[in-house]
């Protein structure tokens, strides 16, 4: 009797779940999954649309000079800014975690850039990094020469700075949560055994931040694609070569409605990102099992 009632309830639950999920899933199928399947199909078709050309489109984009430049720049950008962001934010989180005065004010301050629209910052970026801007004025005052920061190799570093500015606080919050999940008793026990601060950090804090490291890295990777906003609003569709990213190539191919190239590039980008995320998830999981 009770069994039957529970069964009925389970069925009711499954039926309700279908109804609850239906609007969202239907939308995702129509707006994302079906057209994505179409994009994958198109990446193997000729420009006219109906001829199967195998990997021809992929060969074309790999041979494309601006695509190569963009891939190089994007990889370089990721390799520079992600470690830099993770290290700086971890350092700040460690300082903040000592219950410093005005801790809340600092948290709020660091998080603020995340919500500031890029359009608002464009004026400041121009004022500071223009060749007659404040940074040039500073370098002249220091006895150096003015530079056209936005239209030279320096543009890359300006973009790195924009990225750090925006996501620094976001990462500090994530690290702080990771830090506060470590029980105080671990440290107390270690201190009783005579461990110093550095030993505590390397033997307790760092190993236990493994999961947080996985999360912050993945989020840093996802967010790194959004620096296109700064690059685009400050320097337009064709910025200095040093910051011509994958996002620019795709956006420019899109303007020409070059569907074969965009489709192939989108498929490649999708595979790459998912592969990176799944591999790091595996590594993070294995690490956790071992400990």
């Amino acid at each position, binding site marked *: 009797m009770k069994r039957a009632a529970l069964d009925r309830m389970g069925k*009711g639950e*499954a039926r*309700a*779940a279908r109804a*609850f*999920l239906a609007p*969202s*899933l239907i939308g*995702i199928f*129509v*707006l*994302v999954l*079906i057209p*994505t399947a*179409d*994009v994958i199909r198109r990446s193997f078709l000729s420009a006219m649309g109906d001829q199967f050309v195998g990997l021809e489109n992929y060969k074309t984009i790999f041979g494309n000079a601006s695509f190569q430049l963009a891939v190089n720049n994007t990889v370089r950008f990721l390799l520079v800014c992600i470690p830099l962001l993770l290290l700086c934010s971890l350092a*700040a989180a460690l300082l903040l975690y*000592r219950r*410093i005065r005005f801790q809340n004010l*600092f948290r*709020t301050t*660091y998080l603020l850039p*995340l*919500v*500031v*629209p*890029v*359009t*608002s*910052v*464009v*004026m*400041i970026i121009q*004022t500071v990094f*223009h060749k*007659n*801007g*404040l940074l*040039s*004025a500073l370098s002249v005052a220091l006895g150096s020469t003015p530079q056209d920061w936005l239209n030279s190799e320096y543009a890359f570093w300006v973009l790195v700075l924009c990225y750090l*500015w925006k996501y620094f*606080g976001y990462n500090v*919050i*994530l690290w702080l*949560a990771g830090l506060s999940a470590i029980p105080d008793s671990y440290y107390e026990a270690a201190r009783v055994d005579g461990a110093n601060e550095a030993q505590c950090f390397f033997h307790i804090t760092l190993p236990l931040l493994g999961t*947080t490291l*996985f*999360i912050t890295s*993945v989020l840093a990777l*996802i967010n790194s*694609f*959004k620096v296109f906003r700064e690059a685009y*609003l400050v320097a337009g569709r064709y910025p200095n070569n040093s910051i011509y990213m994958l996002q620019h190539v795709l*956006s420019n191919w*899109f303007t020409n409605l070059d569907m074969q190239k965009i489709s192939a590039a*989108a498929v490649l*980008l*999708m595979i790459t*990102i*998912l592969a990176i995320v799944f591999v790091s998830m595996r590594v993070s999981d294995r690490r956790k099992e071992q400990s």
Partner: protein
Amino acid sequence: MKSKRLQPCSFVILFLLALLVWTPLWMLLTGALTPTSELREHLSGVLGSSGELASWSLLPNRLTLQHVVELLLDTPAFFRVFWNSCVQVLPAVAGQVLIGAPAAWALSQLRFHGRNTVFRLYIVLMILPFQVTMASSYIVLNWLGLIDSPFAILLPAAFSAFPVFIMTKFFAGIPREMLEAARMDGASEWAVFFKIGLPLGLPGVLSAALLGFVEGWNAVEQPITFLKSASLTPLSVFLPATTVANTGVSFVSAVIALLPTVLIFLLGQQYLEQGILASGIKE
């Protein structure tokens, strides 16, 4: 003892970092209130062709509301742009909650076959950057005839996977016993969702809505890709043609553009932070 000695030193470092946030925002604010003559002295080399190096002063010699008045009274184009942002963002956030909350409830609290698979699908969609889905979104929006209309922004945003993920995390914290008790009393699944799920999961809904608003208000990729007419330009991609003569107005416009998200952030910081943390909790 040791950490006591470190305190002043770490405070200075943290303060300098905070200065990096405050300085640009302070410059925006003072720029918006500085008279044109003074701005010309500061920025003629940047915005004009005088070739002089830029300068800035901590506080302007004289404060003026002239630029604010000019933007609010003499620039109807600005209102249009502001309104476009509202039209393209607010319904999307409403959609995210209306469509996303029930889905998140099913994923977090209802038992059914394939739940983990569906949840992984949402995670994958959440991870992919705009550039990956750009082509597929274009195909379907074009097919629906929605390119160059507010719906080109609204529709994909309303079905975004991210709010579903956030709300799922929050809803999962509601103890199952409460639901079982209500069910034993004969409550329908909808009643359980509305009477227990929504009230207890409200912080999650607020988090998702706040993050959704910030994301929508700051969107750049979608409008530049799917909107063609200048009359549909939202504030997030609006760059007034800045000359030496109207620099102040551009500063005011920049300040107004950041007010909604910054105010919402200051009011709902706890929900925003919880949302950020929820996006960090693993499956």
